[in-house]
């Protein structure tokens, strides 16, 4: 074995506190094996799982949108029924949920695209982006509906 440090060797680096590299019994520096049973929850996991949930939800939302288009294409009488349903408390509840999904798709999709380019993957950035993607949709959707009610476009 050569005496020069191997790529990624942080075993002798006093500033490295991660413990990511260990000296194996044969003397080689190898990354620590991942523990499959010792781990803790991380917000990046929530963001990742929520994006899959969001994709499922936005697929349903798109199907609802096509149904809305169908009602509109079937004329004023057919649309009146759908419009009344949309304006009912249940319809507004679904509408609010769909705006949460839409904002979640935009924020989490932006996070995913940014991470796909290899950026924002440091612990700090990944946490920040994930927190924005996880929590951001709720205040945005609330703001959206407050504005809808404030401008009189929607009323109960």
């Amino acid at each position, binding site marked *: 074995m050569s005496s020069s440090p191997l790529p990624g060797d942080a075993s002798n680096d006093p500033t490295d506190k991660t413990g990511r590299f260990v000296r194996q019994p044969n003397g080689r520096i190898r990354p620590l094996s991942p523990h499959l049973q010792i781990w803790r929850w991380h917000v990046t996991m929530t963001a990742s799982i929520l994006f*899959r949930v969001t*994709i*499922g939800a*936005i*697929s349903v939302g*798109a*199907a609802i*949108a*096509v149904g809305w*288009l*169908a009602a*509109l*294409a*079937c*004329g*004023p009488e*057919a*649309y*009146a029924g759908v*419009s009344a349903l949309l304006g009912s408390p249940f319809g507004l509840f679904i509408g609010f949920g769909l*705006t949460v999904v*839409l*904002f979640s*798709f*935009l924020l989490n*999709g*932006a996070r*995913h*695209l940014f991470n*796909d380019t290899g950026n924002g993957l440091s612990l700090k950035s990944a946490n920040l982006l994930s927190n924005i993607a996880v929590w951001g949709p709720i205040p945005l959707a609330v703001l*959206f509906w407050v*504005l*809808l009610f404030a401008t*009189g*476009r*929607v*009323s109960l």
Partner: protein
Amino acid sequence: MSGPAKFKNHVKISERHGAGEWLTERVALALLMPLGLWVVSSVFTLAGAGYDDLLAWFASPLNAGLLILTLLTLFLFASLAWKVIIEDYIHKPLAKTLAIGSLNLVFLVLAAASVFFIVRLALGSAPLPAGIGA
């Protein structure tokens, strides 16, 4: 499906077609970001609008075109994203193929239906089912 392997600088660039699908999914998602913002603003302006106002909105080719583009891109993205999710959790070949195939069929039908309805609304066609038998 898998043709002869392609090489770049003597390195096989992709076993089959995964890299192409990966890139297509990202391009679709990137396209959906501005389109999604446009949907947010459109929903805001159209909320509470009556039937005639909605028809006037659809009469604009820009609105109709952007809505068709949005839905087609979304269904393309959804079919690719669902494929990845299914491949992660369903491992029996027949069940996997059936799940992916049936979801693709659903998304294809939804995409075709959305184009059909939007084009009719944009052209100001008589309300359905006029023109298809009734």
